[in-house]
């Protein structure tokens, strides 16, 4: 067999495999469930749409678009808390999506009660805003690129002695970003399953994890809190303004 024929056969099988793989991906059960969910949504059957979308989650898969659509379904059903919960989950996966940003802001604008301002410093808030634009994987890749850039800068300084000084300055600057990014990544990872959204219309936050304890403050549907401890059926949560207390676990949903 000639070399040219071998090449042709190889190309044919490669194309065949790629097409088969694409077809398989296009017709997989998750995609089908997603499309069915969309159809039910268009028909106004939000319960059935949610059911279809949840079947994908039950199968162990997720993505930003899925959480976005789920958020829309809950919003249309009037369940603001669950809508915001899903938008929050979507923000972890597609934080730069404009549609998501718009829907999230609109949903948050409907939260009852007075808005609570953060007590963090301006620098922390700015950094938080920057890191919010990254996914965990995105930040990981970003750090990996920074790491390789640091190595390249050092090599550049070693191989080209005329630029040694400049190269090392660049390496140090990139290194600072790398350290900052690493702190950001650690922070993001540490928030996994430590944040929650209020899904009950009203949740009383008490001083102690007891039904008859004094109410410290009230959380309204859609508000976001940080989980700092748990005990039996209670979670200790902290609000953006730093106030913390105990809330019943069925009032919030962790993400």
């Amino acid at each position, binding site marked *: 067999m000639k070399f040219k024929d071998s090449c042709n056969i190889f190309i044919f099988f490669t194309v065949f495999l790629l097409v088969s793989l694409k077809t398989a991906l296009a017709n997989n059960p998750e995609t089908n469930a997603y499309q069915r969910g969309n159809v039910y949504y268009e028909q106004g059957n939000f319960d059935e749409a949610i059911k279809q979308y949840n079947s994908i989650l039950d199968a162990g898969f997720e*993505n930003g*678009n899925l959480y*976005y659509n789920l958020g829309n379904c809950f919003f249309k059903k009037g369940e603001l808390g669950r809508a915001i919960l899903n938008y929050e989950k979507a923000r972890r996966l597609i934080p730069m999506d404009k549609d998501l940003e718009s829907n999230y802001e609109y949903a948050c604008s409907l939260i009852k009660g007075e808005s609570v301002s953060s007590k963090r410093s301006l620098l922390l808030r700015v950094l938080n805003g920057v890191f919010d634009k990254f996914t965990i994987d995105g930040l990981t890749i970003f750090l990996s690129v920074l790491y390789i850039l640091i190595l390249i800068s050092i090599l550049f300084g070693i191989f080209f002695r005329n630029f040694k000084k400049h190269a090392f300055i660049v390496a140090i600057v990139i290194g600072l970003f790398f350290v900052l990014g690493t702190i950001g990544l650690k922070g993001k990872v540490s928030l996994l399953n430590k944040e929650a959204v209020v899904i009950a219309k009203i949740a009383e936050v008490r001083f102690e994890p007891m039904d008859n304890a004094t109410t410290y403050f009230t959380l309204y549907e859609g508000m976001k809190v940080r989980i700092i401890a748990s005990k039996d059926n209670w979670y200790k949560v902290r609000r953006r303004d730093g106030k913390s207390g105990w809330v019943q676990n069925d009032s919030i949903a962790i993400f």
Partner: protein
Amino acid sequence: MFEDYSYLALYPRKYKKIIQNILLFCFVFFIFSFNCYASDIQLEVTVDRNKVSLGEAIQLNVTFHGTQNISPPNLDKIEGFDSRYLGPSTMVSIVNGVVTSSITHVYTLIPLKTGTFTIGPFSINVQGRTLTSKPITVEVLSTPSTGQRPYSLPQTQEEAQPKKIDTQDLSDRIFLILSVGKRKPYLNEIVPLTVKLYVNRLAVRDIQFPVIETNDFSIEKFTENPKQYREELGGVSYDVIEFNTDMFALKPGEFNLGPAKIKCNLVVRRQTQRRRSPFDDDFFSGFFNDDIFDDFFGRYEIYPLELKSAELPITVLSLPQEGKPDGFDGALGDFQLEVEATPLQVKAGDPITLKMIVKGDGNFDSVKPPRLESLEGFKVYEPQVKQEKDKKIFEQVLIPESEKVDHIPQIKFCFFNSRTGQYQVLTHNPIPISVSRIEEAQTKLIELPQAQVKPAPEELGRDIIYLKSSPGKFKRIGSYLYQSLGFWLLQILSFIVFITLIVIRLRQDRLINDERYARRLKASSRAKKAIKEIERLLQQDKTEAFFNAVFKTIREYLADRFHLPAGGITAATILDIAKEKDINNEVLDKIKNIFADCDMARYAPAKFNQEQLKIIFQNLKEVIDYMEKQKI
């Protein structure tokens, strides 16, 4: 609501709701029947058609409105007909909280001879009061009348394609009447236009809005909710659907309006073997003409029908020239004028909004803005026009140019009153205003072109953005890149590459800067090459060349190893170095022997046989190996 007991008995579950409604109506009837008095009771006598042939029957309905508590009246003998009582039918309706009830006693009249007969008038005594009906004329023909089965029904069920029905045959059971509010309107005068669809004992559906093709009149769209009611015409009761709109003529002259056309579908029953009951006629099918019956029985067929009304001659009058006032812009109708101006105290250059409202009846399309008597002293902008159902609003911005202006001039509006047939002029007296002086700079600011006036901020709606149609790429829940082994291997690999490159670079630097190191590294490789060459010479038995190569190799190797000039290497120098470097005596002896053998070979090369050469070669290799291993 008619109580069709035959259907209810057949399908009690399906019509549970209907039964409930009937019971509810019966209850209402029971409650309200006590409130009926004879003074409220009215009598109506109708027939289902007024043309019948011998051998066929017509239906006579004697209806008492306002009560349901009247037993069937004893009708006198009707000339030319044999009458038979079929039974009562009751109806209760609640419209806007007003309850009305009626009972209809249904009779069958069978003609006994041909001719034209008058049925009634009937006088019936109800609760001490005599009620009298109108007489009805019925023509009895010898041939089958068009009214009985005027349309050609398909005789077999195989004829599935709907046929077009000749509307002439149905002309007395379904027809259109086109009418206008005024047969001699003025040009541009708004005139109400009505199209009535009369239906008698036919099931009609999919009725479309009337279409009137004309180039002489402007006809508004028909209102979306046509009126529906019953009307008696020539003793025959019709279901009427009334479509209303307005129109006006576009040019003066004599024209024919119409015909109005309406498309609809006629639902007719197939010929079946089912036995006819007294209620099983077109009268009831007209009210039970839902698709559900088609599904149940498959007995109904639909025939498309296009109905046409008669044309309507209309004379359009042009507006008289006599008495036509100056400033008449063609407005036609009966109008009133309201004017208001705000604010009345301004600085020169400040805008005043003049709101002029023309309201009343008429053709508002013909209404132009009322005229100001004089525009002197004002800067005037084009008015903004807003038209509503019964009024037209003109908002005009006037800017007094100086403080000398003290009033808004008189406003005049002329129109032709189509009711009186005369021109009318409405005037509004001058409106006093107070204008004060302003700074010049401010004046310039105000006199910006209208286009630069900042519009009111637009109010935008707000809602969530629609779904994402594409699913995108799914990933395992909770799996992140930083957890994958491949990611970390890649990082480690890149670090290894980095270290390797650095080592290479440092080695290159040392080779350049450290001659001793460079010679030492070079010595090994050169010695390896030389040993191969010596081996080749040994095999070729070239003794002289062999010894030259051995001598050169040992001398250069040791010179490179100990960073000495090659020419300065002798057995004596080697002994000195050996003491410093602590070289093994055995090796040292081998070196000395190699140098001695090489010296001897220069003078007597034939003295060495092949075996001795091999020993020398082996010694040379051992010396170099020793040096390499000992890192001396």
